[in-house]
């Protein structure tokens, strides 16, 4: 732990009855950093966030914020949620329907016994910051989804918590608004120099928003790193498959040469790729190739095969070709429309991972 660390989670474990949800998770969040907790549903990412917030009851491990232990199973410390001084933006926004926008944002200050005059100034400043000042007297149901989200952020920021937690912040917005909100939120976090922990199930959202990503799977951290590392250097099959659009094909190891291996795929193709498995020659393995790595090409060569193009799909900025290779469907992107028929496809060795 360095003194730049603002949130530190150490070996946190949590179960519902006999069902373990978190199996010992450790992570750090540095001051001014955005970390995403990414993972499929049931991976424990929301549970981890809620455990940090004090809304779930872990049974081992510890959580420290700005040097203050807020949970420590060994020392018997468990600060209740209201004393942890954290900001949480709920997935559903959780605005109190019986309070106006102003009262929603003012409530945390009221609990902290801030004088009325100062409270008004701070609430209006917070609302102004988020472009909501003209909506102060409205009730939550009179606002659009995007406005509600911003009120919820204002409420979580108004008392200057050291860390802000965001639970699936974009999932309640419609698809088109989501990309704009993503840019807006990232900009806000950077501009206000917030330290943020964000839960998301969307890998592109995680990559766009965060400085670091923690990928959870089955209650443990599968891999963590910068978005580029997570996308470009996956250490396990799960990480490779979860990040990006992929072709996944099964086969057996045919040859091994240092850090590379040849896999003889069940569909008849044989390709060289980066070896990420300890499986010996003859053992089962699988190849993962990002869709953008596969290319149409003119003729035979290394890591190339002639296979049947079934159909071309127009995606707006590109075409996606669907190939039959044995029992596998292989997807390849390109710029032009291609008629069905046999074509050569190249899977460059640097873009193939063998797990």
């Amino acid at each position: 732990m360095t003194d730049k660390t603002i949130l530190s989670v150490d070996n946190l474990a949590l179960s519902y009855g006999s069902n373990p949800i978190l199996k010992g998770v450790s992570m750090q969040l540095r001051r001014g950093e955005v970390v995403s907790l990414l993972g499929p549903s049931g991976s424990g990412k929301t549970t981890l966030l809620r455990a940090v917030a004090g809304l779930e009851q872990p049974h081992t491990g510890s959580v420290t914020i700005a040097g203050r232990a807020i949970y420590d199973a060994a020392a018997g410390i468990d600060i209740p949620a209201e004393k942890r001084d954290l900001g949480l933006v709920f997935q559903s926004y959780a605005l109190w329907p019986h309070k106006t926008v102003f009262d929603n944002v003012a409530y945390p200050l009221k609990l902290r016994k801030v004088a009325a005059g100062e409270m008004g100034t701070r609430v209006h400043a917070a609302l102004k910051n988020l472009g909501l000042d003209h909506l102060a007297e409205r009730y939550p149901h009179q606002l659009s989804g995007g406005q509600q989200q911003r009120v919820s952020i204002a409420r979580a920021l108004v008392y200057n918590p050291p860390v802000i937690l965001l639970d699936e912040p974009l999932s309640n917005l419609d698809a088109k608004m989501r990309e704009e909100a993503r840019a807006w939120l990232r900009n806000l976090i950077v501009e206000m120099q917030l330290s943020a922990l964000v839960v998301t199930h969307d890998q592109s959202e995680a990559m766009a928003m965060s400085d670091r990503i923690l990928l959870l799977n089955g209650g443990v951290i599968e891999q963590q790193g910068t978005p580029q590392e997570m996308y470009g250097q996956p250490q396990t099959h799960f990480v490779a498959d979860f990040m990006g659009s992929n072709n996944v094909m099964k086969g057996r190891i045919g040859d091994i040469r240092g850090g590379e291996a040849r896999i003889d795929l069940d569909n008849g193709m044989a390709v060289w790729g980066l070896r990420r498995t300890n499986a010996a020659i003859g053992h089962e393995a699988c190849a993962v190739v990002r869709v953008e790595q596969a290319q149409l090409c003119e003729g035979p060569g290394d890591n190339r095969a002639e296979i049947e193009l079934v159909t071309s799909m127009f995606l707006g900025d590109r075409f996606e070709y669907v190939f039959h290779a044995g029992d596998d469907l292989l997807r390849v992107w390109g710029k032009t429309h291609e008629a069905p028929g046999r074509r050569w496809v190249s899977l460059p060795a640097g873009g193939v991972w063998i797990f």
Partner: protein
Amino acid sequence: MLQTLPRRAVVALLALSVFFPIGLVLWQSVLSGPFFMPAAVPSLESYAFIFNDPDFWQAGRNTLAVAFGMGAIAIPLGAILAFIMVRTDLPGRRWLETPILVPIFVSPVVLGFGYVVSLGPVGFFSVWFQELFGSVPWNIYSLASIIVIAGLTHVPHVYLYSSSALRNLGSDVEEAARLSGAGPFRVARDVSLPMVSPALLYVGVLVFFLGFEIFGLPLILGDPEGHLVLTTYLYKLTNKLGTPSYHLMAAVATCIIAVTFPLVLLQRALLKSAQRFVAMKGKSARQRPLMLGPWKWLALALILAWLFVTVVVPVSGIALRSVVSSWGQGVNLLEVLTLDHFRAVFEEDTMIRSIINSVLIGTLGGALAIGCYLAVGLAIHRKNDGLARFVDYIVLTPRAVPGLMAGLAVFWVFLFVPFLSPLRSTLFSVWFAYAVVWLAYGMRLIQSALMQVGPELEEAGRLVGASHSRVSRDITIPLVRNGLLGAWLLVFMIFEREYSTGVYLLSPGTEVIGAQIVSLWASGAVDVVAALSLINMALVGIGLAIALRFGVKLHD
């Protein structure tokens, strides 16, 4: 959500309020005499006495006949009624909904009295029928009549549960069956009915259970020919031996609880399984009603006929009886019209007191009861620990004790506990008994209101720095305000309707209309009973009108 200490205090008080009276009943049942007599020693002679009493066995057989007969009538009728109301294009469905539920809110003792003055030997409808057709084919005092009337007046209970199950049933599952090639009646038989069967099973147990508890109807209708059920047997025991036969009454009560308590637990288990079924529902789009064609007029006629028999006949009978001085064959209605009965009511202090007390117990008492239920509700809100599960069972327990018995037990408590005895002849004792008897009902209202509050709204309060009690005060309670108001109105109606719980607590100062009617009926004061019954129905009616005005759902 309360902190640990107040939470425990609330639960401890609740447990004491429920288990102490019931424990007293069980203990009394194994004593040789009333518990306050020094000579009373532990013994099973009370059981020996009642088990040797042929009347007890006759009452038991009658109770079974009533419980099963009621179910056989109420369940099919209620289920059909629900299907017609929810799933078909019956004309006038919207305005039929409220009258259908009326029998639930009318005191059974008032209903029973209504049948006597309408269909009894010299009842209005009997006399008119005789003048038209020469003779009357029914005998209102027979056991069969009691069963039929009990069955018909419990149709609304079945209707409530089956209609909400039918509404919860997503139309997508039915549409899927239609598209797979099933006709409308195949769909009803193969999909709809099996899917609401858990609700029907639940309601079957409920009706059987209500049959065991039934008191008002057999008290009024069974008396002339001596048809006893267990509750009326218990009531008559008071005078059987001349001395207070508390130990015998406790033994009978224990026998009733031995049947009803397992039924309550069974209901709980069934309700849980029924909810699992409902949880699987898909998105329910607007259901397309089944076109009945010309049959709809027959269906409407049947429903109106049922309403006539269960609502119009008893209610109009009471209304008429309260404004005539006498009635019989050959009496001209216009000549006997009078307001004397109401004058009599308003001239006597006890009557005025009973009306004032009834209003007080419904309004203030209702609000106080809601406050207590809310405290318990908040103590277990979003908790799933041992304490919360314990409360679950405490709440269920009084459900198994018939009101008559619970009133007696509370009477004993106020007799037995020194610092409570000054309160025995105050309205507080009646309120306490009412609040305990209707605990399960009130808690269901409160809990369904509390469950409407999204958990994240409370969590958001915690996160920004509010303690548990602050969250309750600033977020949970303001959000359930409307639900509490609705619950208060429903509890008002239930408290006005209540009659059996106050019977043993009746003393100068604690008169309430329901108990007063029971006691006056025994003395044969029909005129005053008619006037009081009408006033009682009017009070319930006011509550109902306000509830409907505010859009309170009459069931959850």
